[in-house]
């Protein structure tokens, strides 16, 4: 069908999991949280976290960055 030049794959759309439609932002935020937790664990392990002034702020920043990146390039929010 002609959509006037709009690519349906780049449109924000809900994700169906077992027949349940999930909002894309929820999926991106969940993945963003997991990625931020993994990054924080890794930085703790290699003791790079000591260079941050206040790691909870850094965690928040990681969460936002990952959510935006995943939302923009993977989940399409």
């Amino acid at each position, binding site marked *: 069908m002609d959509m006037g030049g709009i690519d349906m794959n780049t449109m924000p759309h809900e994700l169906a999991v077992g027949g*349940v439609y999930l909002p894309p932002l*929820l999926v991106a935020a969940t993945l963003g949280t997991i990625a931020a937790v993994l990054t*924080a*664990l890794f*930085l*703790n392990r290699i*003791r790079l*976290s*000591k*260079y*941050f*002034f*206040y*790691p*909870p702020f*850094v*965690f928040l920043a990681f969460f936002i960055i990952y959510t935006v990146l995943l939302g923009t390039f993977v989940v399409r929010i």
Partner: protein
Amino acid sequence: MSLSITAKESIKTALAMTLSYGIALSLGWDKPYWAGFSVAFISLATSGQSLNKGAYRMLGTLMAGLVSLAIIALSPQSRWLFITLLSAWVGFCTYMTWGKRHPVFWGYSGYVCAVVSMAAGPDPVNAFQTAVLRAQETGLGILVYSLVAMLVWPINSRPKFEAAAAKLASTQQQLLKTSLEWMAGKGDPTTVQQLRGREMQEQKQFVQLFAAAETDSYEIWELRHHWHSYQHLVAELSEAMARWRENLTGTQTLDLPGLMPNLSSFAAEIDGRLTQIGRMLANQEPGQQPSAVDLEIDDTKVVHLSHFHKAALTVIRDQLRRMESLTRSLFHSAGYIKGFSPAAPELDDRPPVTEGFGLPDPDRAAGAVRVMLIMWIAYLGMIYVDRFPAGPDAVAVAGTFGLVIAGIPQVSIWLLFLPAFLSTLVSGLIYFLVMPQLSSFLGLGALLFGVTFAIYYLLAAPRLNVAKLLAISMFMTVISVSNHQTYHFLVVSTTALMLPVVFICMGVTAYFPVDLRPRQSFLRLRGRYFRSCEYLMDALRQDPQKSESRLARLKKAFHLREMSSLPTKLGVWSRVLSMKALPGTSPQQITAMVTALQGLSYRMQQLVEDRSHPQAPFLVQELRSDVAAWGTKMTEAFRCLAGEPSVEDQNIFHKELTGIMERLNMRIEETVDKAAGNITGRDGENFYRFLGACRGVADALAAYVASAGAIDWAPWREERFY
């Protein structure tokens, strides 16, 4: 086959739950799970505790109903004023909940107010009906559970309470015996520490069971003033013994049996009294009455001692005399309570000076601010985020959970998330797969009974209390029983989505504005401890004979309470420290440091008390500058330790401390020689008491510096994500 107590209590809760739902449904009440919540929250270990909690909960609910209506009436069409008033009230209730006076009443005043206001606030037309319905349902749950508790397998707290009292007396006797052996150089300090830990735990249990037995046992209620007095005497004896043990370190080089010739008979008398108290509490007649005994001092040997040793001896003698006086009072108190002594002893139920409404508690205040912040974050989310899961209910749930966790900041909220989330999923399965098959209350009742029993039976351990309450709350919320039962996927999905939102609100407040990570909290409390020591040491420079202003008295009482309570709080935080992230520190080192702080607290308290005694003017004049120099050194050390956990160079610190103590000793020698005959017996005793207290503080500080110096503090300062 006989059922275990856990099984019986689970059956009682499950029965009360089923009956509450049944009655609420038959009366056509909306949201009958409020009655269920009431049952779930008041069902504790014994009927006494539950009745007590039930009465307070009912009063708290009534208070919450009134406050909710007042908040709604004061803030019509004004959402910011509404949340300001509501969060302020919940914050105030949180502060009061974690205090000692009527915690259950304040807890439910806050929790029910959040629930009623958030249910009625957005719908002010029905606010009154909503508030009344919540109060009715809460009352129904309390009434049903109370009746079930009284009629089905009633548990009377009295035997448990009396057994706890006897056990505590026996532990105190063992502790005294082991400490005496240690004083004689035979005992093991580890056993003393273990017994001390047991004594503190049993004291806590004694207080809890007393509150329960007072409610469900007429015999205990009748003698409650005497039991209160007994409780205070036990606490005072416990502290007196702890202070005595702390001071024993200063007398290790002394021949105490030689200096106090009747020490062994004196100790045997105290030991015998504790044995008789144990007998009386076990309803056996005492074998002997307390006999008059005083601790004698061999003056011919004492004259050869240094002034510091004389001071240490005076302190030890005072404390042993205090223990003698307390055991005598305890003996008479136990004798009267158990009917072995006809004369009523004088009652001692004065509250401790350091407890009072006027003294702010920083930790409770931080908890109150945390709850207010949690509610504000959830409320802002509800207003500004489109389709915020569960809307007003999320704010109410956030406030309720916040109130629960505010007093236990050391518990990681992420550990609570898993049981809450799992129970939501399991409840969702029951909601979709089981509930549609039910066609009458018989089936629903069996389901409610079975699930409640399973949750209460499987999660019966006290450490699982929060998980148990979360599981039952989620179950009742998800199945959302009503007379016109509907099934909708959104019920489960909304609850499941609400949970992460609520936990995120709580999680944010674990880092802002107060960082509640264990390591940071431990360091912060340690700093606070030394700031209080610094204040008290600085305040000691004031002339004790001059009257203090009310503000100065309050400040002193505040810092005294901080100093005496912070080692216990540090002990609690030390148990949740991640040792993997702290290489160079062992749990034993942390325990030793906390024990050293506890010892320093006792010595500082002793110093503050002894400073108030009048001193001979001649001694004051002669030694003023030397004592002031000692005080300045101590204040500086406390100031330094408030900032850094340990001193830079232990050797220099010890050298300076020893130097200043030696100078003081020398000046005392000169002054006493000069004074020859000008110092009366009482002045001399007061002087040696004060000197002993000064020496005690210096020794305890040195012990802390040694224990803190053994720890590698660099990893403690290193920032980490968790």
